[in-house]
């Protein structure tokens, strides 16, 4: 269980496994989409969104761990902070990767830079702002890094590549980056924000993260319809809808498990019945 302000969150899945899942899954997804971009007309660009979903689950768990101490302000703030750090680091990483003539280094540079920014904010939050949350430094680093993978992953799902010029033309100049910003931020902040309370369970929160990540994936697929081609976009949308269904049913079955009772309220009573 984990309510806001109640201290350390109890977890069934250890955090180290989720960190490894997020980093490895995220990078494998992004690089697989990149290297398979010439195969079968770019239909494998959906792998980037799968990487983004891995990062979402990891990031949502990090949000859960830090926000269960009580941030003083709402959980949404940390999602916006994550994507704020993420977007700066992601753009820097991809641009520098292209600048040094080694595009494939971009996501890794972005990940490292995001971790540094996150660590600095984490240290300052505890030492200067005196928030006194023991896991602040570690979780801030994780949140920044997962936000970065999320942004790059969704960009790859949209364009099929993380080469900076292509991302700049098809994602940033067109304004789709704002969609990534809000849909990605929502995927990180919403799971814990929606589930927090004395009966919060880790698996329910993470299923909610999976479902939110899948919605972001479907949106990335819709963008890919115009940014790439119809087949790449449709594959991303269909895989996204399938994952969404799996995530939503998993979430709903855990809601039924954790609730005292789930009852149908029926339709609204008619005027005669109320009199």
């Amino acid at each position, binding site marked *: 269980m984990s309510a806001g302000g109640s201290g350390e969150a109890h977890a069934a899945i250890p955090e180290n496994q989720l960190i490894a899942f997020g980093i490895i899954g995220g990078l494998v997804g992004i690089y697989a989409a990149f290297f398979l971009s010439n195969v079968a007309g770019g239909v494998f660009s959906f792998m980037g969104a799968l990487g983004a979903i891995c990062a979402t689950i990891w990031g949502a768990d990090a949000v859960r761990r830090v926000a269960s101490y009580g*941030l*003083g*302000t*709402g959980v*949404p*703030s*940390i999602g*916006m*902070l994550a*994507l*704020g*750090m*993420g*977007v*700066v*680091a992601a*753009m*820097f990483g991809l*641009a*520098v990767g292209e*600048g*040094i*003539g080694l595009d494939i280094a971009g996501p890794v540079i972005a990940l490292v*830079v995001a971790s*540094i*920014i996150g660590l*600095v*904010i984490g240290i*300052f*939050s505890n030492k*200067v*702002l*005196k*928030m006194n949350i023991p896991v602040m430094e570690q979780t801030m680093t994780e949140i920044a890094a997962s936000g970065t993978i999320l942004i790059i992953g969704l960009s790859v799902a949209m364009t099929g590549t993380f080469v900076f010029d292509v991302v*700049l*033309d098809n994602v*940033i*100049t*067109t*304004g789709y*980056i*704002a969609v990534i*910003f809000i849909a990605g931020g929502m995927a990180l902040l919403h799971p814990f924000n929606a589930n927090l309370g004395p009966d919060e369970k880790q698996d329910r929160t993470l299923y909610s993260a999976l479902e939110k990540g899948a919605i972001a994936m479907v949106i990335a697929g819709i963008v890919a319809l115009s940014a790439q081609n119809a087949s790449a976009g449709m594959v991303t949308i269909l895989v996204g809808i399938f994952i969404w269904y799996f995530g939503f049913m998993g979430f709903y079955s855990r809601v039924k498990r954790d609730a005292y009772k789930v009852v149908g309220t029926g339709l609204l009573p008619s005027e005669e019945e109320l009199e």
Partner: protein
Amino acid sequence: MIDIAGLIAENIIYLLLITLGGVLISVSVHFVPVGGAPAAMAQACGIGTGTVQLAAGAGLTGLVTAGAMMGVTDNILLVLASGTVGAMIMITVTMIVANWVYFYGVGCPAASAKVKYDPITKDRQDLYISQGTEGHALTTVSFISGAIGAGFGGMGGGLVYYALLKIGEVAAGLTVKDIMSTTGHELVGLASIFAVGIFFMNAVIPSYNIGGTIEGFHDPKFKRWPRAALTSLVVTFLCAILAVVTLGGM
């Protein structure tokens, strides 16, 4: 290969302007009467939503109005004035509508539990507070404080945006005015998403500093602003270096 040291030396003035803008945004949030969830239930003084939403609403309006001015002129003072006024209009409209809701919808007067007398109007506060609440609606001092805060926020946002475009200007070989009046210029998108990222970071840092709620410059928590300013200084400086390398290296 990108010459990182050279880029930073070349753009040192814009690096400092971005940092200054970030600190301005951070300080500005302390002025805005953020009530959070309690204020949404008319149980605390302030606007009933979180810091990030308010700062984003006002600050991003500032970015838009500053951007609109950049398409017309290269004069930095006019750009900043436009950003300032845009953000101030946004937050004052928000506050006046919130007050209508509190006065005519909820049916409570504006009162603050943090001070006995309103520092500006000298009106007695404690007599009007409903039992068990920390105050409700927006008092005159909170309203004026909010307008000042939004002004700083809009100015800071405009400054960050302008400095980012100025860095790109050198690389693109166009003036800011020309970049802004070209439809779909890639610099505009990149600079604006950087500005939004820096803006959100500097809106969240002070909200952690004040613990989510504040009434304005008369609130005891307002004295904590140097902490947030220091944090924002360091964090924005880091981001500014990244921005210089990204935009300057294009």
